[in-house]
């Protein structure tokens, strides 16, 4: 008998269940038509758990493993083939359940081969020594199963009745799901729930640039001709009908556009109910359906049946633009996108509900969007809201037109909202629409951001950054950061940035120095960076300031109510000040200076994030100073003075070696004096704002901008103008722009550094001229510090300059510090960029938390 070659068609994401007795050729069939990784075989699983693929006692473990593997694959959206006999209904039932759990389509392919062939095949295999009765039993089970497969839930069933038929299968074609329209890239105009508001729809379409003309009814144009703006397509989010004044015309227009290819449409729950009604099913004619029924009564049968068919054919949701956009009437969770199951369809129509009923008699909706973490933007309607607002890349654009609100469209990819006002209130909603608005002044995203989830910060984390690709945060470090963040840090809504650590220059080759400008400049020269900015390094404490033009600016942009017009926090996210009134006065004064300087207008913003040094050191480091620095000075001074006395006394006795010892301890005494002089310069009492001194050095971000695209010269000059507005509080940072290849300029800046540090200055920071600078080996260190010889006493200990000590201390490496600085820098800038583009707080917090976690890496703190 000649058999014509044949192609089988299955959905691209399906769970293919092969059914056939032992020896029916399932494995051969699977290998012929599927990728090796797509096949999960029970024999193979038996072998994995027991080293023997025929070990029947391992069956339970083997199937547990099989299900586990299949589940992981389906979760990841991968077609999976189960190669097992599957002749018993219960084994198939568990596979159907699995497919449904992952919203994949169950497919059955039956290989129904005569027993004698199977037996003959088994006889050829020495490891398969079970008797013929086994095959017989399996075959009869299979036979009994055949006609129940559809009821069991298989959506595609292929029964191949002979070896010839099996061999004739030339190909298994994978068909994508109807909802998969990734190849359509838009741009789109996505339109919310219309509910029979025909006039408003025409107005909206016109506003969007569509030209709608009434024409003679011809074929399926339903009397409309619509010209879309070039390249654009409309998308209707469903609930075309009910409640409003003219559902039939809305249907006609949408059906016309869909047939003409100028629109897509997904079904809403109201549309579905109408379709059921039109199909003669028993549905309750209420919630606005009664109006539609009445309006349709005036139409002819032909139109009604067209409507019924049109609604029946609507696909629950669409995935567009390479997976970047998902549209569905009531939204869609990430794990359901692009999948097909009853559950997916129900979700698309009704969203997620908790099963409870609220005080207005409506089902309590579960806010799936607040947990949404998917990459695709989800645009939906269904629940009327007073304002279309973003929440975790999802947006509900049903602004309640039929209830007297507006009809809204979202332009994609522009993310622009266009609405028209309803002509009148067509119906009163059961739940007042401005309900939530009355309770909440914050946006949905800000309200949602009130609470971060622990899963977004703990464990090993890999954070994608623009500057440095992925930054990994180890679990032990996030463990440490969680404690610090939750016990000491300020409200996370303020924390849009944490500063990176900074590496010192490489260890100096000169005998008397640990650090020197030569090495700092040399680093940039090696990286091929020609121009650098050398800034005086102030010795205070690092401070990040968020300052608003007024409290309203802070409320609307940061979602923080009634706290302050700004905040000043430390490099670990703690409040800088412990004295609240001093803090408020300080913040107010900074804000006023920015206003005086015309900063808000110049940068077109009403808030700013500044990176600064706040002096004196003693204001923040009081405890460290008293417990550590001053204590060491006090102990050493008292002891050394006794020692020198006793040695001087002894010296008269002319004992060999005492003079040398006296000299040594006198030198120690000198070093301690120098050390005390050093730390004392950074201390003075603070009783009022007038005692503080603020030296900003970066204007990190303002509304809509992270200023990493500017040069440090721009930052310095812009800051100069702020300093001029309040020279009593602000301290401008002395700086020099240096060409590292120009010997004269280099010598000049070395002399400048020597002079600064000679007068007790901490030193200087060398930055590439451009904030972000890419050299021969990629991103260049954003800054390298070069600290003064005397200042380093308080870092390396009073006696570090002693020759032998310095020799040993010079054995240090800056490479881990540099790597850390770079990772923290990338995370810090990423946090700002995410905040500026209005990402959810958790996306910002993840980066800031990452910086804090990286800070717990064990690195020599003296660097």
């Amino acid at each position, binding site marked *: 008998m000649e058999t014509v070659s044949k192609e089988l068609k299955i959905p691209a994401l399906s769970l293919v269940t092969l059914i056939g007795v032992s020896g029916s050729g399932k494995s051969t069939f699977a290998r012929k038509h599927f990728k090796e990784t797509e096949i999960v075989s029970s024999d193979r699983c038996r072998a994995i758990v027991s080293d023997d693929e025929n070990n029947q006692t391992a069956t339970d473990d083997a199937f547990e493993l099989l299900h586990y593997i299949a589940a992981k694959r389906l979760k990841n959206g991968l077609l999976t083939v189960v190669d097992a006999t599957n002749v018993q209904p219960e084994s198939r039932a568990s596979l159907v359940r699995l497919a449904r759990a992952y919203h994949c389509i169950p497919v059955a392919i039956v290989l129904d081969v005569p027993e004698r062939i199977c037996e003959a095949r088994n006889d050829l295999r020495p490891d398969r020594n079970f008797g013929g009765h086994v095959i017989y039993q399996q075959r009869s089970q299979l036979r009994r199963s055949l006609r129940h497969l559809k009821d069991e839930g298989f959506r595609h069933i292929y029964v191949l009745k002979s070896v010839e038929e099996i061999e004739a299968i030339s190909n298994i074609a994978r068909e994508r799901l109807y909802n998969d329209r990734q190849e359509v890239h838009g741009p789109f105009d996505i339109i919310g729930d219309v509910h029979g508001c025909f006039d408003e729809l025409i107005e909206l379409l016109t506003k969007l640039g569509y030209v709608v003309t009434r024409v003679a009814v011809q074929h399926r144009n339903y009397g409309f001709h619509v010209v879309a703006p070039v390249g654009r397509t409309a998308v209707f989010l469903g609930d075309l009908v009910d409640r409003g004044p003219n559902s039939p015309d809305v249907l006609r227009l949408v059906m016309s556009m869909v047939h003409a290819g100028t629109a897509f449409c997904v079904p809403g729950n109201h549309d579905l109910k109408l379709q059921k009604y039109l199909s003669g099913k028993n549905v309750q004619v209420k919630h606005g359906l009664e109006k539609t029924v009445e309006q349709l009564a005036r139409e002819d049968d032909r139109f009604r049946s067209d409507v019924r068919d049109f609604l029946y054919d609507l696909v629950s949701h669409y995935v567009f633009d390479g997976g970047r956009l998902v549209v569905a009437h009531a939204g869609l969770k990430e794990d359901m996108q692009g999948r097909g199951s009853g559950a997916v369809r129900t979700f698309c129509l009704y969203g997620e509900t908790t099963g409870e009923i609220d005080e207005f008699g409506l089902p309590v909706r579960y806010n799936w969007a607040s947990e949404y973490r998917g990459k695709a933007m989800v645009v939906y309607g269904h629940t009327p809201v007073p304002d279309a607002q973003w929440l975790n890349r999802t947006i509900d654009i049903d602004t309640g037109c039929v209830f007297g609100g507006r009809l809204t469209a979202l332009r994609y990819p522009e993310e622009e909202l266009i609405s028209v006002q309803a002509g009148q209130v067509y119906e009163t909603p059961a739940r007042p629409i401005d309900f939530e608005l009355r309770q909440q002044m914050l946006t949905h995203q800000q309200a949602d951001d*009130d*609470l*971060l*989830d*622990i*899963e977004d910060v*703990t464990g090993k984390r890999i954070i994608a950054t623009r500057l440095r690709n992925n930054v990994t945060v180890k679990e032990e470090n996030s*463990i*440490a950061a*969680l*404690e610090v*963040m*939750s*016990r000491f840090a*300020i*409200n996370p809504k303020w924390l849009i940035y944490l500063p990176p650590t900074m590496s010192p220059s490489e260890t100096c080759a000169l005998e008397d120095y640990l650090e020197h400008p030569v090495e700092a400049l040399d680093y940039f020269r090696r990286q091929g960076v020609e121009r650098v900015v050398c800034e005086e390094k102030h010795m205070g404490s690092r401070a990040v300031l968020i300052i608003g033009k007024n409290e309203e600016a802070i409320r609307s942009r940061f979602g923080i109510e009634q*706290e302050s017009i700004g905040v000043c926090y430390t490099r670990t996210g703690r409040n800088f000040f412990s004295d609240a009134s001093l803090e408020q006065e300080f913040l107010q004064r900074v804000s006023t200076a920015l206003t005086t300087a015309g900063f808000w207008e110049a940068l077109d913003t009403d808030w700013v994030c500044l990176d600064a040094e706040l002096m004196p050191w003693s204001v923040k480091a009081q405890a*460290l100073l*008293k417990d*550590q*620095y*001053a*204590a*060491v*000075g*006090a*102990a*050493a001074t*008292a*002891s*050394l003075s*006794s*020692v020198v006395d*006793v*040695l001087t*006394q*002894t010296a008269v*006795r002319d*004992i*060999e*070696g*005492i003079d040398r*010892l006296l000299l*040594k301890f006198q030198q120690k005494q000198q070093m301690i004096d120098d050390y*005390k002089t050093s730390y*004392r310069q950074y*201390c003075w*009492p603070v009783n009022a704002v007038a005692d503080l001194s603020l030296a900003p050095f970066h204007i990190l971000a303002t509304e809509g901008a992270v200023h990493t695209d500017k040069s440090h010269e721009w930052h310095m000059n812009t800051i100069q103008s702020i300093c001029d507005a309040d020279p009593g509080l602000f301290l401008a940072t002395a700086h020099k722009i240096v060409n590292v290849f120009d010997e004269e300029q280099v010598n000049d800046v070395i002399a400048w550094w020597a002079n600064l540090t000679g007068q007790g200055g901490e030193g200087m920071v060398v930055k590439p001229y451009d904030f972000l600078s890419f050299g021969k080996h990629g991103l260049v260190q954003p800054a390298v510090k070069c600290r003064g010889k005397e200042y380093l006493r308080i*870092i*390396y*200990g*009073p*006696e*570090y300059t002693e020759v032998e*000590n310095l020799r*040993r*201390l010079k054995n240090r490496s800056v490479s881990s510090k540099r790597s850390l600085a770079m990772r923290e820098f990338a995370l810090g800038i990423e946090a700002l960029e995410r905040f500026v583009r209005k990402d959810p707080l958790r996306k910002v917090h993840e980066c800031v938390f990452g910086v804090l976690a990286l800070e717990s890496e*064990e690195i*020599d*703190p003296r660097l």
Partner: protein
Amino acid sequence: MLFTITTTHSPATDLCYLLHKHPAKLQAVELSQGVAHIFYPHADDDKCTVALLLDIDPVGLVRKSGEGGPDAFTLGHYVNDRPYVSSSFMSVAIAKAFSTAMNGKCEKRPELVDIVMPFDITLSVLPAAKGGELLIRRLFEPLGYSVAVERYALDEHFPEWGPSKYFTVNLKANLKLKDLLTHVYVLIPVLDNEKHYWVSQHEVEKLLTKGEGWLKDHPAREQIIRRYLRNIGGLAKNALVRLTEDEPVGPVAPEEDHAQDIARETLHDKRLKVVLDELVASGSNTVVDLGCGEGKLLKMLLRERQFSVILGVDVSHRILERAAERLRLDEMPPKQKERITLAQGALTYRDKRLAGFDAAAIVEVIEHLDVNRLKAFERVVFEFAKPKTVVLTTPNREYNELFETLDAGTMRHSDHRFEWDRNEFETWASNVAVRNKYRVTFKPVGDVHERVGAPTQMAIFKADQYE
């Protein structure tokens, strides 16, 4: 850093024989991190002074001890007072430089060993943070010394910073040299409450040997033992038992100036008992202890068969490790271990793991949160975790006036962000209950004072739908 011994015994130079050190030479002994120099500033028949001078290598010191220490990665570690004080290093140096004298041996002039001589000694400088001058006197005066101390300012440029913890100590007494040396040897590290570069079982032996003949009868005996062994309870008790032989021994008592700590401890135990009673009475089977600390309440919960699932949550991973040790989680039989889990979590982050419990205990936790974070805490616990019963305690500020050692206006713990009076707490708790559909009742914990109430206040929340 400097220890001098002067005697006016006649002839004073007998000291040189006793110490077995030549008066006209500069000598040295090696220490692990540096050297100790020995020399005589004065040596004639009327007066003889010996000096022991520590010359500690500051770089080597932090290098060696820096490996793996808990503070190895903090900056303060590298600016260290150890080279300039008389600390455990001095004791080590004494033992090395004057070992024969301390052991009561003198080969050339054995008769000198038991002679009582007048001594005048100076120690520069002793760190004595907690007890200060009082402690110095309490340690040395019972041994017959007349004590003079000089305390130094932290920094004379900043008088507002106040005094430092450093003292130059001068002691005068008539006694045997070997006794003097052992006294100083033992008491230096007792004064210095900071880092000792030792503590092991071996130290118990040393303490007992050096303390022979005087420690047993010293009125500050227990304090000396405990501080010498750096508050390691096990070691301290071990030493005390062996020291007192057949006298009955209670637990090593905490320091006298910590009477308030004892009061706090008993209040805490009382509080936990009350909380436990509430949890038992609620009929709960599954319970989460939010802010479980070292697991005192967890231990009590484990003893109740009623609780089949117990979760202890704390923000500090270190504390959880300690809780695991205290509960002996590793050695627990599997059936018991099944009932309990420890997890790190912060009460300002929403956390799935906290959902679905019958009851939650939140004992002395909220006052460690900034007031503006309470909203997040409320949502985490009452909106998302939603236990049927919540038992929550916090200090009652009104009661603070009855704590004698607490200055007016200060809080009970340096990490407390606020302490509420009864009205403030009840207002907050009632609002939380209304907002989240709970009913709340209040109970005092501890002795109730008629005007200021009890030291601790407790709120018991019951979710409405389970009433």
